[in-house]
């Protein structure tokens, strides 16, 4: 039993950690990632750079950073209602769309993940085909449909139109996450006397919270970035920021500074949303299918 006693008697000395020196090796991964991130950031940096310049500087001397720093472009946007209402309009219909998409997708995804019924597989694929439908195909019919029922140029019209591709996506994502929840949980809840709605809201929803978050993220994303439908369905009252940006092309040429500033401001909501969900991105992007 000599081994044991020597292990016991040895005093604890703390040597210099060996791992620290090994981490400092220059790695190919860092180079690849560095180059890729640079590729991603450069165009955005350039937009930011331009948004902080005067038009004279933009068109005049070519410079890598603003020599004559100005916030006038941002001022123009944030003080003019016809500009900043574009952001408000966009945000309104995006939030409406996300809420509607999730509300209808949740029960449907549950049905697909738990039950088999007549035509379920075909129905699922048919839903997905709507995600595949080119918005260009629907632009004109939507215009006529919403005009005829008096919804043209309202937020709800855009929100409903975006459901075309967001509802199938939400169903698809949520179904993936719900499949990961064991069916025994449902059965136990029913045995414990929960009604279906009570079970769904109190027990099931918290279990797939991350899935709902991911679905919401994707709905937000695709509704926020879409232009063709939102531009077709609005004229003044619900005009999205993306459409407002075309205004910068005037008789006197393009107002580059304001255009760039408006562009930067459209990136901000997305950046904010990403910041909040950054810890779920990796798992979330797998749509619950890993």
């Amino acid at each position, binding site marked *: 039993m000599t081994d044991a006693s*020597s*292990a*016991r008697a040895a005093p*604890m000395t703390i040597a210099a*950690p*060996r791992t620290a020196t090994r981490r400092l090796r220059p790695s190919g991964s860092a180079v690849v990632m560095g180059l890729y991130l640079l590729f991603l950031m450069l165009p955005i940096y350039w937009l930011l750079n331009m948004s902080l310049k005067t038009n004279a500087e933009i068109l005049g001397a070519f410079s890598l950073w603003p020599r004559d720093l100005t916030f006038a472009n941002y001022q123009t946007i944030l003080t003019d209602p016809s500009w900043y209402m574009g952001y408000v309009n966009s945000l309104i219909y995006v939030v409406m769309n996300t809420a509607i998409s999730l509300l209808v997708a949740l029960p449907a995804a549950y049905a697909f993940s738990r039950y088999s019924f007549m035509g379920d597989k075909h129905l699922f694929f048919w839903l997905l085909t709507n995600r595949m439908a080119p918005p260009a195909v629907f632009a004109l019919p939507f215009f006529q449909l919403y005009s005829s029922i008096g919804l043209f140029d309202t937020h709800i019209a855009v929100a409903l139109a975006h459901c075309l591709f967001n509802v199938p996506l939400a169903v698809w994502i949520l179904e993936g996450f719900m499949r990961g929840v064991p069916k025994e949980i449902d059965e136990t809840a029913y045995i414990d006397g929960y009604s279906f709605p009570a079970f769904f809201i109190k027990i099931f929803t918290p279990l797939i919270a991350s899935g709902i978050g991911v679905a919401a993220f994707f709905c937000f994303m695709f509704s926020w970035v879409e232009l063709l439908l939102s531009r077709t369905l609005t004229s003044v009252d619900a005009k999205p920021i993306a459409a407002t940006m075309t205004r910068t092309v005037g008789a006197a040429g393009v107002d580059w500074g304001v255009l760039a500033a408006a562009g930067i401001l459209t990136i901000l909501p997305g950046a904010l949303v990403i910041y909040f969900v950054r810890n779920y991105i990796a798992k979330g992007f797998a749509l619950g299918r890993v």
Partner: protein
Amino acid sequence: MARITLDNLAHSYLTYPRGPEDFALKELNHDWADGEAYALLGASGCGKSTLLNIISGLLIPSQGRVLFDGRDVTTAPTAERNIAQVFQFPVVYDTMTVRQNLAFPLKNRGMEAAEIARRVQKVAAMIDMEAQLDRKARGLTADAKQKISLGRGMVREDVNALLFDEPLTVIDPHMKWELRTQLKKLHHDFGHTMIYVTHDQTEALTFADKVVVMHDGRVVQIGTPQDLFERPAHTFVGYFIGSPGMNLFDATLDATSNGRHARIGDATVDLTQPYAATGRVQVGVRPEFIRLAAGGDGIPAQITRIEDVGRHKIVRLHAAGRDISALIGEGEAIPADTDRITFAPQGVNVYADDWRVAPGGESR
């Protein structure tokens, strides 16, 4: 095959550990003799997987050296060490057939096709998967997959050591026994140095020549199954090995008798040999060595419950302010008026601050 020496080894997952408590593996010196089968036993999180990964080279220890036959391999990559390791969960290459899976480690080492085929056939027979050799590994059951993992470890016959990290967790109970027997036979036939990590004492005691018990990042005892049973070096070993575990009584050594007696509560126990110890002194007695008595000497005790578990009975008692257990053979009677317990002298161990104190007469 090799002798593996751990020299002054310790590991912390933190870059800058501040004290012993930051170490997942506390300082350790040990020789794993060539060709022996060891079991590394401990509760989960005790550092046994850390130790295994250091030996296999998946982890570089933050201090100390690992030597294979005297050669320093501390920072050598896994591939250079020529070891095989089987993991807790089956690791198979899904897109390959069973045959390709088994051949993979040999193929990577550039072995010639005929020799690969011969060994694969042999290992397939050993793990009883000859019929499935040309099936894709994807879609096999968990224990079939684990058998493939075992097979990939065994297919290389010249390995320095075979390491097993709780390999039978996902295997069916009857298959478990069979595979363990296979492993023992393999060890017998080829004489590989084997290190088998487990938290299951039965697995450890039946598999290994020597059992290494770990607790809280420290090796607390290395010994034969018999050593661990009769002379647990640490109270953890006493408690962890054996079912039920060792009974421990707070005690004071009686200085007037040169430490030949200990006082437990109001009773005096004859230790038969002199002991000297400082710190928190405990007397440990396995349930097998507790005798029930009515009247006379001994520690006052009351029976609270009797469990019949087949070959013997477990008697639960309350004595010296704590709950203890005693094992009584099937044929033995339990006195109805039991109110005392005594200890069989050969089963008494004395502990100071959880470590066993050798009696004055026993050489260390």
